[in-house]
């Protein structure tokens, strides 16, 4: 905890309006739904090759090596000039790799599922309700939670850049930032959702939330059937990042 507190003080001291904090510890840790982190030692993960070539412009290993060298030179220069310290940069990277992620939003969703009064507070004024669970800060200073029901399906995008509720979902996945998602989900939401495996009935209303300002949107998914016997922590494990963006449903656990 000491380490965590140190990181937080660095962030709060140095970032001004861009500061990000988690105000509680995450019970699920970094292995929660959708969690994951890159290797501190620069190891390149092998799982983003040909099948994902449209996610982002492709870079050869040589190009990535060159980028790594340029950024290292830039970091050295900024440190030499006294504009930033390595410790500050380390603390920021560690916070976003370890403390922020969909495991946080999952706790908010699970609480709303088990506590009707909390659910009401969350839907009426999400920012303080999310603070109650322990999350807030940069890219989550003004939160709105929208609820999926049998009649209405909500899905969130940022067509202009990559706005995303960091305190509760962490940094966005590549597909959320992709040109395909940003361009298409506002004009063809059903086609996009079908590519995520979500076929919606014609009668269902689809609401697309384009995060164009500093308000951040989180989807409260429907609680799956067959989960009446689960407690809050067991429910949180079921809640995925994609369901809280609105491109999938929460599935009941296998019997």
């Amino acid at each position, binding site marked *: 905890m000491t380490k965590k507190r140190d990181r937080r003080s660095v962030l709060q001291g*140095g*970032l001004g*309006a*861009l500061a990000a904090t988690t105000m509680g510890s995450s019970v699920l840790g970094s292995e929660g739904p959708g969690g*994951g*982190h*890159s*290797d501190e030692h*620069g190891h390149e*993960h092998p*799982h*983003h090759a040909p099948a*994902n070539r449209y996610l*982002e*412009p492709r*870079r050869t290993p040589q190009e*990535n090596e060159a*980028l790594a060298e*340029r950024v*290292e*030179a*830039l970091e050295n*220069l900024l440190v030499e000039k006294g*504009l*930033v310290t390595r410790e500050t*940069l380390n603390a*920021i*990277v560690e916070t*976003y*790799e370890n403390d922020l992620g969909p495991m946080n939003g999952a706790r908010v969703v699970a609480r709303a599922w088990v506590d009707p009064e909390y659910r009401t507070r969350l839907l009426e004024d999400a920012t303080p309700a999310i603070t109650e669970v322990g999350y807030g800060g*940069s890219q989550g200073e*003004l939160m709105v939670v929208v609820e999926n029901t049998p009649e209405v399906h909500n899905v969130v995008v940022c*067509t*202009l850049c990559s706005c995303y509720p960091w305190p509760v979902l962490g*940094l966005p*996945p*590549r*597909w959320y*930032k*992709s040109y*395909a*998602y*940003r*361009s*298409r989900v*506002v*004009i063809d939401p*059903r086609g996009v959702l079908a*590519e*995520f495996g979500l076929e919606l009935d*014609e009668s269902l*209303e*689809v*609401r*697309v*939330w*384009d995060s164009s*300002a*500093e*308000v951040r949107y989180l989807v409260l998914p429907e609680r799956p059937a067959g989960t009446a016997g689960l407690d809050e922590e067991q429910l949180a494990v079921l809640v995925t990042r994609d369901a809280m963006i609105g491109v999938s449903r929460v599935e009941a656990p296998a019997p």
Partner: protein
Amino acid sequence: MNGVHDMGGMHGFGRIQREDNEPVFHHRWEGRVFAVEMAGVGGANIDHGRHSIERLHPDRYLAYSYYERWLGAFLLRAQETGLLAPAELAAVASDSLPPGTPPTNPEPSDTLLRGEAARLREEGRMEPRFAIADRVRARNMHPEGHTRLPRYVRGKVGTIVLSHGPQVFPDTRAHGLGPHPQPLYNVRFTSAELWGESGGAQDSVFIDLWEDYLDPAEADG
């Protein structure tokens, strides 16, 4: 600006591609670029930061990966503000810097302006011009500078569904022209209004728009 970043409704980018068990950063350098920006090096406010990404030449914007855009935008600002000297820039930019659209105004840092909006909200100032359920038309405006009014809603008629209170205005703040806090609304546009026959009959887009982006729907009908 009518930039390539304003992607809502464009065609041609293909299917959605997903990646299982995605790491937060795919390469160590991505995390370092992110952290440099988050540490506030150079002192850009968030609107200025976003605008500097938009000002990357469209060739570069589309060809760069996500954190390359952050890097390119940081270097663009470092060049413009003199944060890094030409010789220093040459050492960290492997090729010549991307040709970017020049800023329309030199910008001071105003990272505290969000607090200003919160104060105004607490004091209950700034009576909103529009009420929930009012019909509004998004202005058909095409500023060359930063704006958060996407092309796909300009000229379209929607309905106010949420009133968020005063927020600083990105169109001026990105250019050092002051916070101009004003009411921010969430506006619902039906897919039929936005996309005509291509829009789903049951569907809508909800988008946050500042008061200066909106007129009463009957005013220019």
